[in-house]
């Protein structure tokens, strides 16, 4: 049967069912309809669009029928939407501009991006849904590796073509392979790959004042010839000094990430108390800020970059925490609460 015919026969079947249904809206949950949707991934890519549209049209038609059945909505009088203001009314005022705000996380991302842009980095964006290939495989996490457990990733019910669920990226490193590939030609021109990716990431955690399942991270990558680990430390130190507007001490502790070797945890001397000890640094004088390291050769290879010729470093820093420390925000949940009494303070 041709694709169009398949949809047409299901339509006939569903219209017949519709007549007999007591609860008319049940038609929208008919298994026949679900099967049609499920068929899409099995089709040749070039056929998918047309088939999808045909199913959509059917779905719209059914919805319209259901809506008409229950359509007791109070009719509101149509308005002339082409007019700049209403009949017998004056042109509306804007709300007072002093109550307008930009979200503190957006502000911070803009500031961080500006600093890195000035340092020669491109700004890239991440995804909210991705495949395991980008989230794990290209980052040297073999399947079944215990390091995957360190990321409580959200998975979808739906599967990709290999039968794996999609995931909500738990770090912006999910873009690393794409960024490396996108700017690979820089290397041939004798220039560096330099990019940061500030964006939303997800971890399947219970919420409390210190834990969010949705937060923001800024991933950075730098690849060129003769890049060494001391440059990683120097680059991040320079960035932090610019960000906090003062000289700072930094240190690295050895750490483990599958996608960097060596890997570090990076700390800075507390910029809020000059290392005298304060609430922000838990009276330690140091703040553990981010994870970083020299990009693992497998990660470079996955992007067709020769690790014998080029080396590089990468890091990831949580943006929410930077904002919380800077402003003394007590509860991370405020960020996504849309509470105006929170937002209007920024």
């Amino acid at each position, binding site marked *: 049967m041709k694709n169009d015919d398949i949809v047409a026969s299901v339509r006939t079947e569903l219209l017949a069912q519709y007549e007999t249904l007591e609860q008319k809206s049940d038609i929208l949950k008919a298994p026949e309809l679900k099967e049609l949707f499920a068929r899409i991934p099995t089709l040749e890519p070039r056929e998918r669009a047309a088939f999808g549209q045909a199913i959509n049209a059917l779905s719209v038609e059914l919805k319209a029928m259901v809506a008409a059945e229950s359509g007791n909505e109070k009719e509101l009088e149509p308005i002339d939407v082409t007019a700049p203001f209403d009949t*017998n009314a004056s042109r509306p005022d804007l709300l007072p501009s002093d109550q307008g705000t930009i979200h503190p996380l957006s502000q911070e991302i803009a500031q961080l991006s500006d600093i890195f842009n000035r340092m020669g980095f491109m700004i890239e964006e991440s995804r909210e849904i991705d495949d395991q290939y980008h989230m794990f495989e290209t980052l040297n996490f073999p399947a079944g590796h215990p390091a995957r457990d360190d990321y409580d990733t959200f998975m979808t019910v739906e599967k990709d073509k290999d039968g794996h669920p999609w995931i909500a990226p738990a770090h912006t490193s999910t873009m690393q392979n794409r960024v490396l590939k996108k700017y690979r030609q820089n290397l041939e021109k004798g220039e560096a790959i330099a990019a940061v990716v500030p964006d939303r990431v997800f971890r399947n955690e219970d919420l409390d004042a210190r834990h969010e399942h949705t937060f923001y991270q800024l991933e950075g990558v730098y690849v060129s010839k003769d890049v060494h680990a001391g440059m990683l430390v120097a680059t991040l130190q320079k960035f932090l000094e610019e960000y906090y507007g003062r000289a700072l001490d930094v240190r690295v502790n050895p750490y483990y990430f599958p996608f960097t070797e060596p890997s570090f945890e990076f700390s800075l001397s507390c910029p809020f108390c000059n290392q005298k000890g304060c609430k922000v640094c838990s009276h330690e004088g140091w703040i553990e800020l981010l994870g970083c390291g*020299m990009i693992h050769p497998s990660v470079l290879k996955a992007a067709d970059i020769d690790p014998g010729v080029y080396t590089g470093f990468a890091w990831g820093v949580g943006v929410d925490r930077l904002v919380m420390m800077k402003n003394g925000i007590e509860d991370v949940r405020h960020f996504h609460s849309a509470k105006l009494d929170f937002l209007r303070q920024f």
Partner: protein
Amino acid sequence: MRVSLNEIKQYINGELPPVDELVKRINEQLGGVEDVIDFGDIYKDAVIVRVVSCGKHPNADKLHVCLVDDAGVVEDVARNEDGYVKVVCGAPNVHADMFAVWLPPKAVVPSTYHDDEPFILGARELRGEMSNGMLASPKELGLGDSHEGILELDPDEWKPTSVDIKAGTSFAQAYGLDDKIIDIENKMFTHRPDLFGQLGVAREIAGITGKKFVSPDWYKDSPKFSNGSGLDLTVSNDASDVVPRFMAVAVKDLTVKPSPTWLQAELVRLGGKPINNIVDVTNYVMLLTAQPTHAYDYDKLRGHKLGTRMATKGETAELLNGKTYELSESDIVIVDGEGIVGLGGIMGGGNSEVSNETKNVVLEVANFDMYAIRKSSMRHGLFTDAVTRFNKGQSALQNPYVLDLLLKSVLDVAGGTQASEIEDKHAGLAEKISVTVHPDFINARLGLNFDSEQIETLLENVEFTVEEDSGSLRFTAPFWRTDIELPEDVVEEVGRLYGFDKLPRELPHRSIAPAPLDPKLQTKRLIRTSLKRSGANEVLTYSFVHRKLLEKAGQDDSEAFGLSNALSPDLQYYRLSLLPSLLDKVHPNIKNGFDEFVLYELGKGHHKQDVDEQGLPNETELLELVYASKRGGDGAPFYKVRRVIDQFFADTGIDVTYKTITKPLNYPGASVFEQSRSALVLTKSGQTLGIIGELKQSVRQGFKLPDTVAAASLSLALLHEAREAAGNAYVPLSRFPAISQDISLAVANDVSYADVFATAQEAVGQDADESLRLTLSPVSIYRADESDTKTITLRLNVVSYEKTLTDNDVKSLIKRISQSAKLALKAETI
């Protein structure tokens, strides 16, 4: 990972730096130190005493009155003329001439040290006899559960320290309890199975403090096992895919009893709990070497067999924790002749447990596949010390060394003799790994300038073998290391042992070419700036929504990606658009006293059918916005939102028109809009940017929205394109004054403002004099009650670049408008 400073000192030649300095070095070069526990403080008052005399208590049958000799080291305590101290003791095993541990008055009982209210001893009368403090039982000293008598110390028993057991000696010093425990974050050791034992950490600490480490003989020299006989033992390994090595040996005629005091003290410091000598030795060997070991009661092994195999589906195993687990084909089990006696690599079974009656044991040292262990452990929720170590991937090459130590230690503390051959069932074992690297490779990645010798020294300190190989260096990792595979692994080793903080900090060089700005981000910034100026508040809401939210918005959950593992039911689906989440935030803000506001978000929608060529879901970037007011307002709320959007278009130079919606829109973002009071937003080239409008009554009710509410949904990608295409809107200024005149046109109610405006525009635009600049703008739209017509007043503003205009110049233009409008729209000029 708890590390005992006293323990590691035994293995390191030479002095270690002071604790603070050491902790700093560990932090910098090994792993994050989470805590440093002053273990000695728990035992600071415990003193070894000789019981001089022990007589019956005159008033109590079960009590003794003892005189103890502490060599006078404790101050402020009542003593007799000989300098002895009186202590009443109820333990049945107290006797004269024994060595015991005395807790003097003011001492804290060690087992209560961590309690909220630690028990502090005093001098008090017991049935008429003064008792100064107490003689302590193992339990009171925090050494296991034994409370049947006081701890009796044997001065001749072997112990790791050379401190003599005599009156007045500090108990802590004698048994190494004057210790500092350094707790290092486990996560740092994910790829370092060898660091889950004291020996491994000692080696690393030697390495980072520049000392050459030499493993003790038992870990360095291949073991020479003896032959043994006397007990039948059949060992098999039928799961060698996931059990690379399985070693076992039987021991007969041993005595299960409490461990010697030194061993109990070792275990307690490392966070263990003394149980009996056999169990304690297996635990201690693990804590030392990172290799988990296990002892079975030989006589409980049916058929005198011990082996491995995969479980079959539906089999069950009762483990040492008393719980029963249902197994599957991917669980490794340890079996005897009849059934399961343990879950391999995770926990032993209850049916083969060593007890006080045990006479013969089988000792097992095995190696398990890290992935198999991890999977079983996750599925059963079993997280034991063995799992922590096996799921890092222990080296199978260390098994013989560990078995040798285990066997010797068991014979030491429990007596008995080896009663079987050493059984060793394994498939092909991994070889020691060699990596050849040129010093330049290492130097280039660390920014250093080391010669071969410096590199060799660093690695040889932690027992690598390094050989020169035509300019390069061949590094052979010791058998316990499983993490050295690549040249980069050697780089890490050199950098860490030298100290990453000492690397030269230099910035990469770059060309002065500016890094390009991302134009799409510029568009987003313009949106934010414009909306802020319009008094709107940017919000961020979750990318995932509850099904109810989709329902309330009239969206179909079958179109949304579902989450299979979310902890919270609020996160069931990827959202199709942003507005449902935004609408959900309106009511709480109104309740919180905010009367009128605009919330907007820049975010993404996902739709199951919307996938790219590779099948990867497309992400639709959206700008969505809601205006809400509790107060109501002047005119329909539609116009309020339009005002905000118009301002943004003015700020970005995008030219748009608003078009009445004539046929139902069926995409998810449109589902909330009342289409008779909504408009499509179109660019001049006819591209639909999105929709703005008022909301359906059902949506307003569902989200508890006020009546004065309207929203907008625009495609970010298209906004961006439109902005890039937008031209320069600047108009040169004229030297001459402008002149304005209004015209009021009465038209039928169903004539749209856009038609009136367009007609007027066209009328004055026709063969317009190029020296003139004409601007037409709305003044008012008026309709009397129930009237069939409305009056639209427009203002024409004219300025010439060449001359001062007169009223007549404008009048002719106004007349043209009037005529055109009459002709085209039957408009009467008023």
